[in-house]
Structure formats: C-alpha cells, structure tokens
C-alpha cells in the first residue's frame, strides 16, 4: 500500500508540472513562485526543526560506548569509538557523518545448520555512502547554474566527475552512481522481507522522488536536450531576486525543477532530517567522561528517598542484637 501510494504521489507531481506548464502555461508559477516557496520551507523548516531539538535539554550523558574507555594509564583507549574529550567526539562525529562508521559495522544474521552466523554485509553501507556522496557531487555541480562567475572548484569537480569522457555530452560518474544507489536502496527495501515489513510510505516516497529527479535530469542532459543558457538565466534570476522566466526552456526542465522543489519543501518535515539529527544524537555526540566531570541536568529535582535514619528506626533492635553499630541506642 505504501509503495503504490508513494509512486502515485510522485506520478501526480510529474503530471502537475507537465500540465501546469504545458497546458496551463504556468511557467512563471513553476519557475519562480514554487522555488521561492520551496526555499522558504526548506530553510524555515530546517531551522525550526533544529531549534526544536536543540531547545530540549540533554539530562544525562548517555553515549553508546563502542570501544575501550579511558581508564588506567597503561590501557589503550579507543579514542574514536569511545571518546572522552571534545576532540575525540569531533573525530567520532566526523567518522559517523562522513564515513557512516556505525553502519559500517553492519552484519547479516543467518541461521545455518543449527547455528546462528553473522555474515559480511557492507552493501547497505556502500550504497548509502555512494548515494550520499553522488548526491553531494551532483548538488555541487549544479552550482554552475546558480553562481556567476562559476567558481573553479565547481569546474574542477565537473571535470573529475566527467573524466570518463564517454559519449557526448560526457557521462557523469555521479549520475550513474546516484541512480544505481537509489535503485539498490529501493530494491533492498522491497526484497528483504524484514525491511519491507517495516517500510512506510514515508520511506518509499523520497526514494521515488529521488529516482524521478535523477531520471529527469539524465533525460535532459543526455536525451531530450533543454536550453542550458536559458536555464542558467532563470536560475540566476532566482538567486539575484530578479526572477525572469525565459521562454522555450522545455517542459522536462520544469518537471525536474518541480521535483527538486518538492524535495526541498518536503525535507524538513520528513525522515530526511536525519541530516540534521545525526549531529544532535546524544549517544554519539557526547564524550564518555561522566565519571570525570559532573554533567548537569537542568531539570534535576529532589526526590523522596528512604533515609538511613528511617532505616535504622525500623531495624534498630535487630541491628543492636546483631552487633551492628547504630546512630541512636534503644530508649
């Protein structure tokens, strides 16, 4: 059910852009109004979500310690998987954010011949990493539309990404990797029974959306060409707050652009916010130093305890009889 719904939603988005531009002639709306709304929702929503997390206190220091603690001087600490300093935490977070350290530990549990076994399984890690990095490269490449003059690093990246020089225009490696990775992430979600069982529409929708973004982009670049100069004119118009909508860009561009805008607008209200959340996760971003430094819980409050005096009052006779020292003798 979740899959069909999500697929239909993406088809509906494509149809909206197509009909809107082609039939209703709303290129002004899709070229100017929609992107401004999307940017507003993205920036506003993202900020709001981060602030809504950040304003909630972290009462206890609960890092998941995934290595040897700082201990006696002659015991080697695992400073990255169980950091006790801020520098260590930065290292741990860098590994987590840039290399998906935790996901790299993944294994696959299987029952084989009456035994439980743990198999090598790095595909999810690999596909996840490939997806995020290729998306990042594509994102940076697209800056050439939004910046004038185009900075050198964008050209450099562009060159590196296209170094295969296959076909004309040259194939970008990132395009291939992106589509392959998104497809893998979708296929595993459908094929692995447990993952399929836990999947919600909110898991399929972003995948379909990203696939459609990727495919429409590839179509535009390699097959149904659009006028890139006019696209840049439109993009620069948005960035400089002097929006212009050149005629004759081609409807495929508007579909691609609308899907991207949807992605941005949807982002802050979805699981995609893991981008921001991972930085705030208390099991990862805290040092394991709570025996060394006292951490303050801002809402710590006094609680009712059973005091020693109450305890002794209750047991005094028995304690004296057993020869245990007491604070107050029997009357």
């Amino acid at each position, binding site marked *: 059910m979740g899959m069909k719904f999500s697929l239909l939603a993406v088809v509906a988005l494509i149809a909206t852009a197509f009909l809107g531009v082609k039939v209703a002639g709303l290129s002004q709306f899709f070229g100017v109004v929609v992107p401004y709304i999307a940017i507003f929702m993205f920036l506003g929503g993202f900020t709001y979500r981060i602030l809504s997390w950040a304003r*909630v206190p972290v009462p206890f220091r609960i890092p998941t310690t995934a290595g040897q603690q*700082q201990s006696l001087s002659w015991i080697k600490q695992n400073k990255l998987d169980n950091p006790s300093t801020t520098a260590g935490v930065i290292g741990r977070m860098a590994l987590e954010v840039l290399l998906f350290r935790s996901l790299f530990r993944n294994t696959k549990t299987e029952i084989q011949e009456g035994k439980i076994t743990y198999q090598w399984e790095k595909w999810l890690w690999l596909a996840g990493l490939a997806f995020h990095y290729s998306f990042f490269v594509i994102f940076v490449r697209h800056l050439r539309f939004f910046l004038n003059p185009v900075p050198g690093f964008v050209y450099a990246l562009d060159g590196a990404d296209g170094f295969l020089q296959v076909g004309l225009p040259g194939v970008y490696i990132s395009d291939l990797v992106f589509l392959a990775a998104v497809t893998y992430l979708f296929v595993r979600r459908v094929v692995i029974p*447990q993952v399929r069982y836990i999947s919600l529409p909110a898991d399929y929708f972003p995948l379909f959306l990203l696939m459609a973004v990727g495919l429409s982009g590839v179509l535009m670049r390699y097959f149904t060409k659009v006028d890139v100069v006019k696209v840049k004119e439109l993009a620069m118009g948005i960035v400089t707050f002097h929006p212009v909508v050149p005629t004759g860009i081609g409807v495929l561009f508007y579909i691609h652009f609308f899907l991207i805008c949807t992605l941005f607008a949807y982002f802050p209200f979805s699981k995609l916010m893991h981008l921001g959340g991972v930085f705030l996760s208390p099991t990862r971003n805290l040092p394991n130093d*709570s025996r060394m430094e006292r951490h303050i819980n801002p809402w710590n409050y006094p609680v009712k305890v059973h005091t020693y005096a109450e305890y002794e009052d209750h*047991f005094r006779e028995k*304690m004296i009889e057993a020869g245990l020292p007491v604070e107050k003798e029997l009357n």
Partner: protein
Amino acid sequence: MAKVAKPNELFSSIDHKPPQEGWMDTKPDFRPGTWCYPAKAKNMEILGLPYAREWSPADEDWKLPTNWKEIIIEGIRERLEKYRSLKIFMDVCVRCGACADKCHFFIGSGDPKNMPVLRAELLRSIYRKEFTLAGKLLGKIAGARELTEDVFKEWFYYFFQCTECRRCSVFCPYGIDTAEITMIGRELLNLLGCNIDWIAGPAANCYNNGNHLGIQPHAFKDMIEFFVDEIEAVTGVRVNPTFNRKGAEILFITPSGDVFADPGTYTLMGYLMLFHALDLDYTWSTYASEGGNFGMFTSHETMKRLNAKMYAESKRLGTKWILGGECGHMWRVINQYMDTMNGPADHLEVPKSPITGTVFDNARSTKMVHLVEFTADLIKNNKLKLDPTRNDHLTVTYHDSCNTARGMGFLEEPRYVINSVCNNFYEMPPNTIREQTFCCGSGSGLNTDEFMEMRMRGGLPRANAVKHVHDQHGVNTLATICAIDRAVLSASMNYWVPDVTVYGVHELVANALVLDGEKQRTTDLRGEPLPGMEDIEE
C-alpha cells in the same frame, strides 16, 4: 511457570520471516512464557507509584483509570520536553533496518516487533498521531495510529521484551538507542501502574531494606559471615569483614545477588579474600547493600531514589571513596547517571589505591571505582601473589556485560585480570563480544521464571557463541562481571550448553590468590578439586 520446549524444538521454531498482515494490525499473544507477572499493589505502594492495584496482563480488563489516554499523552509530551534523545529518536529513523537482526530477542524469537526499529515504531506511531501535523492529517499514510488499549498492551508486551542492552544502538547510523526508548516506554507504562513484579518487588525491597532481595541488616551480616566460614574451610584463613563502620577508608557496594545465590556467592567470597589479602580498610553497609538498581527499569526518578543511598551512606560513614563490585546495570547507573542525579560527591576524595598509590583520575568526579579496574591496577603493580595454575581445570571465555561494554567501555580491564589469573582463555567470535556483545537474555529486570521461554530465546545468541568456543577449544567456563549474568547465564548455559559453568571474575582471582598463612589448598571455592589434587581426601 510455563514449561519451556526442548532446546532443539525451541531452536527450530525460530522463523525470521514476518507475517503477511502489517504490524499495525497484529496484536501480541499473551501466552505463558512470554510476559512477566504484573507488579503487586503492595510493592507499588511502597515505592509510592501511581495506580497500584491487582491486575493481570492475561485479563481483558487491565483496570486502567478512565483518563488513561490523557495521562499517557501528557506523559509523552512531558518527556519530549525533557529528553532530547527521545525527540531525536522519534524523528530521525529512516527504517534502514540495520538494527533489525542485531537484537537477541529478534534473533531468538523471529517476532518482527522485536526488531528494534519496530519496537520504537510502537511508540513512534503514537508520537506521529499526537505530535506531528502529518500524522494528524494523514494518519496511517504518515505511519501514525490511534492510541488504544491494544496499543498500550502491546507496549507492555514489547517494552518488557527488551533488555535495554543497547546492541542495536551500536549499529544505528544515528545512534538511536532502544534502551532509551524502552526506558521511557516503561516510564509511561508505570504512569498507569503497569510494571512487572520482578522489577517492582526488588525496587520496593531495595527502597525499604537496602537491597533487592530484602535482606534485613542482621541477616545480611549473618550471610556474609557464613562465607567467612566457607573461606576458612577452603583456605584456612579467617577474613574479617566489618559492617556500617564509620571512618573506614572505603565503602564497598556490590549487588545483593552475590550475597544470596550461587554462583555469585563465590564471587563474593573472592571479594572478601582479596580485601583480606590487601588488609584493605573498607566496610560493608547494610543500608547501601545494593549495587544494582531495579529503579532504572522503572523510571529515571525511581533510579535516582534508589541510587541516592550510595552517596548518602558514604557521607554518613565518612569514607574517602567508594568501591563497586561486579555488576552490569549498576555500572551504567554509576557511569552515566549517578553523579548527575545525586552528586556532586564533594564529601569524598578522588579515589587513590592505598596499595599502589594509583590515582583513579577517570573517576575523579563520581569518586567510585570499579573493583575490576582496582584489581587490574594491583596486578599490574605486582601487589598480588597469584598462582594461575589453580585455575588450570578451567578453560575460560569472557562474556562482556552489555552495560559495562556499551554504557562504559569496560573491555580490557576484565580481560587483563582473567589472563593474569587463568592460563586457558579463548575469546568468542568478534561479532559477539566487546561493544558487539550479546545480552544474557534476561537483563533489565526480566530474569524471572515465568518469562523463561523468552529468556532462553533471548539468551540464544550468547549461548550460540559460547557453544562455538566450547566445541572449538573445550571452553567450560564462562566468566562474567555482572550479578544478573551469573544468575541467568547459569540457566541459559544449563539449557543451551550444559557443559559450561558460569563464574565471576573475582572468583577466578580468589582461586589463584595466594593468601599469607593459607593451608595447602586442595579445592577451589566451590569445593571442586584443584588440578593435581583430585586424589587427595579431605
């Protein structure tokens, strides 16, 4: 207590394929062996917890108060304001499924709601419905569902089928920690008086009598003195523990399970012998006679109320610092909660070993040292006379307790000690030890008999790894540093790998420890003949 099927039958009943119908439409089957008895009213009353009553999960009517739903929603709201962990963990899961087959209960039961991701979704679905716009508008499409009594019952079932071991959180790319979700889930259940008695009973005992087992002060002293006699019988040396003694340098606190039941009792004898060998100026307390903290399995507040005794008693007795025995969740509390909850411990000094002079700078704020790091330091500084051959009848492997591994990072210290007192040590496979260690299957207050089927299922991954080293290297000894482990792994080994016996690390230390003035030892602490002494008649 429900009868548990034979090991091979239980094993072959495991099916990891999820059912056809979606998880929102299935209900838990409260069959015997899969849930724990409900908290008795008297125990909830001792703790002052709300809605104490007699009820049963097996009944249709759980006797919830009429405004139960408001209480729960309000409870969630309050916790979303107090715990960033909860809010983040409700929001960022992408359902990648990396956690799914990391849970011992899922591996051993195949129940999809034991996948950590779904355990969290049980709560997340309600969070979406009540606290997110998409959930309110789109309902099921947004992964949201209505809070009903059935959902609440499902929470009870599955939040008491999680041992808060944190293994899933090691693998989660965002560090989502099911222990945190279960802890908060249990807090919510407790708002309506829905605890289990195996937790509420010990917590109530601990509150009033000082320890989980409800041992009264005179009996506590008696029991320890019984071990003094036992030690004398084995070694010829009489140790001399003191109780509630003011002015002692060190207050020693350990789980009361070690006082009460085998094989923890042998570990406790090990503590007594070690302290005697060092002539340590320490005292036991009958008031703070519990290291463990079943309050942790009830609510953060109850955890704090029980834990408060440690600092309070050290202050009353005027000790300089605190030494803590072998226990799992006790050390998670001490490492990650105690100082924040009940500190600052300004009445204490930074711990310094009176024997080696080592300053435990890593415990400079809590002022509480783990006995195994204390002993590791002694051995490193050659302060103990050890004869490891006295453990040569044992081929040892080591089970990392979840809490010391993933809530502390206490990995090398116990290995160093074991390797110093034993000659035959083999590690279990890497996916099953250290930070990836598997739970015993009965932690977080689920070590009760009526839960035996799930305990054996949850204990299977650990047992499977022990069996591996048993088959490969002839391992016959499973060493632990956790009182619950000592009790429950004995049951799980008995069930899955009957040739393996469970030991505490300090029992192994005591076997090897040469005491001044000891007679020639012919047996270990359990009365088993030492290697080469099999023919000697007592």
